[in-house]
């Protein structure tokens, strides 16, 4: 045998890392899953919180929502539309009306709105600049031309298997009667303002069905560019001030904010839960790594005796934490993305229509996993590094 040349100072016995992971698969998988679960929750909770602010931030800059000054649940006469159109600076007006109703079973809950199709198309559809509701012109035409027609969101279509041409029977409660809607199109959302789990049909149809009640829930008012929204809002509300139908007009952002404030402290609570869960994951990871370090004292002593440096010992053990936690974090983060973005689990969109997993959230999740890894791997690793060769060999300290 030849005498080997000078030792390489920085050599780290990386194979030991993988051997350890492989030989204790249960420990590895448990730790990895703990971090994965925590990061999954973090991504989900943060995205829910983001959806709240997205709803406000993405609100139409030139739109007002006019409802009853009494309550969100009080309707307004449809005829107010003409007067609103007369207010200076108003470019277009459409209206949305909450239908309620039952589709086969009470349990099948999704939002159903009666709308004015032509003005809706102008404000949100293919004729608008924003194109917030994505639907082909042919489908818009078909929807428009069929008084019993309806369009459904892509998420809703997936959940219930709706296809163009299907009939959707519906029992009215707020707007009584037996309805039969024809699916004329399946839309998708072109903006976070629009969710993909709603159903829209002709307000005219339900109004006729109940014998011309002529009421709507809300008007959405689009202003001419350059006009002051606050002034238009004051003008509209001023016009009905002394009538029996006092209105309250809010910018779309303020209107959305109203819904969010109904959630109260929920966003803060979610943040708290996310932080607590991450901390728990860190402690799980740290605990595993400390147990590992305990088991490896003699082994570390032997490595040192063989000539591996303290630095190599540190890197070997710290890398294990980083590897396991990063893998777990990536699994959790991409798992959430897969489930919600690709798999489109509709349950979450029903509650949080603007739910989006931002790239920023993914980056944060991965960053946090690496950080958990560095801490949980680094703390025991530096203990092993500092441990004197002799105490390590004797398995003490």
């Amino acid at each position, binding site marked *: *045998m*030849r*005498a*080997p*040349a*000078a*030792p*390489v*100072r920085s*050599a780290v*016995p990386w*194979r*030991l890392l993988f*051997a*350890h992971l*492989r*030989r204790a698969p249960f420990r590895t998988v448990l730790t990895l899953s703990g971090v994965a679960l925590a990061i999954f929750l973090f991504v989900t909770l943060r995205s829910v919180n983001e959806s709240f602010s997205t709803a406000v931030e993405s609100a139409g800059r030139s739109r007002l929502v006019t409802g009853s000054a009494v309550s969100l649940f009080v309707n307004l006469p449809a005829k107010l539309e003409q007067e609103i159109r007369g207010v200076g600076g108003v470019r277009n007006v459409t209206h949305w009306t909450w239908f309620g109703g039952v589709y086969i079973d009470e349990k099948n809950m999704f939002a159903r709105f009666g709308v004015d199709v032509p003005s809706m198309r102008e404000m949100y559809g293919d004729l608008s600049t924003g194109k917030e509701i994505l639907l082909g012109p042919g489908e818009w035409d078909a929807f428009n031309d069929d008084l019993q027609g309806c369009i459904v969101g892509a998420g809703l279509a997936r959940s219930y298997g709706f296809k163009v041409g299907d009939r959707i029977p519906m029992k009215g409660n707020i707007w009584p009667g037996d309805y039969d809607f024809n699916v004329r199109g399946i839309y998708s959302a072109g903006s976070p303002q629009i969710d993909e789990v709603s159903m829209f049909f002709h307000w005219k149809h339900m109004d006729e069905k109940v014998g011309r009640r002529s009421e709507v829930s809300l008007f959405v008012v689009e202003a001419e560019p350059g006009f002051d929204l606050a002034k238009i809002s004051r003008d509209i509300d001023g016009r009905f001030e002394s009538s029996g139908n006092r209105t309250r007009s809010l910018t779309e952002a303020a209107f959305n904010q109203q819904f969010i404030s109904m959630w109260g402290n929920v966003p803060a609570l979610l943040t708290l839960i996310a932080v607590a869960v991450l901390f728990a994951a860190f402690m799980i990871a740290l605990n595993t790594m400390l147990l590992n370090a305990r088991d490896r004292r*003699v*082994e570390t*002593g*032997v*490595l*040192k*005796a*063989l*000539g*591996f*440096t*303290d630095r190599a010992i540190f890197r070997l053990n710290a890398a294990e934490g980083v590897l396991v936690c990063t893998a777990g974090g990536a699994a959790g983060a991409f798992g959430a993305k897969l489930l919600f973005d690709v798999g489109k689990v509709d349950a979450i969109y029903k509650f949080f229509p603007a739910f989006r997993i931002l790239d920023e959230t993914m980056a944060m999740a991965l960053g946090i996993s690496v950080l958990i890894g560095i801490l949980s791997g680094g703390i025991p690793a530096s203990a092993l590094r500092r441990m004197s*060769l*002799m105490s390590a*060999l004797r398995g003490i300290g």
Partner: protein
Amino acid sequence: MLIQVRGVVKTFHRDAETVRVLHGVDLDVAAGEWVALMGPSGSGKTTLLNLIGGLDVPDAGSIVVGGEELVGRDGGELAQWRARHVGYVFQLYNLMPVLTAFQNVELPLLLTPLSRKERKDHVETALSMVGLADRMDHFPAQLSGGQNQRVAIARAIVTDPSFLLADEPTGDLDRKSGEEILQLLDDLHRRFGKAIVMVTHDPHAAKRADRLVHLEKGVIVEDAE
């Protein structure tokens, strides 16, 4: 002279207590010599062996190995020196349970610039020298105590060190396996001229050595050929 130990003093601190283990030890080991170190439990045999192997540093004195002074070097330099010059055999084998025999033996070679292929050649040579060429892919738990100690010896010789340090290499083995280990050390000593410093409690094992050194209460009391 391969190893020159002069006036070595070693003290351990346990809590408030100070235990002086070596009280000025002098010892010479010639190249190619096999020295057996005996003495009662707690007399400082392991401590002395660790100092010679650069695993620990003395409080006073000088240790010159192959013309190089060990005392005064920092941890990193000592680590490098150990990787190049020392083959250490422990009483409890101290193999990595998660690595195969092959990988255990290869471990010290990871500190060398040898290529993968060269490492493989060295490991196979070392394992066949200890008669375990056919057990390369076994894990320590799948091997007997004697076989584990042979793997440990292969790991100690694979870098072709100048000398071997063995701390009760047969202490945990039955008579027959112990005999095989001693025979193996004997071969290495005779055929490859390796110097060996071996701690043992077994007079029978000590007979294999060229020279017997007695340590008692931290001083060398008898040094017989």
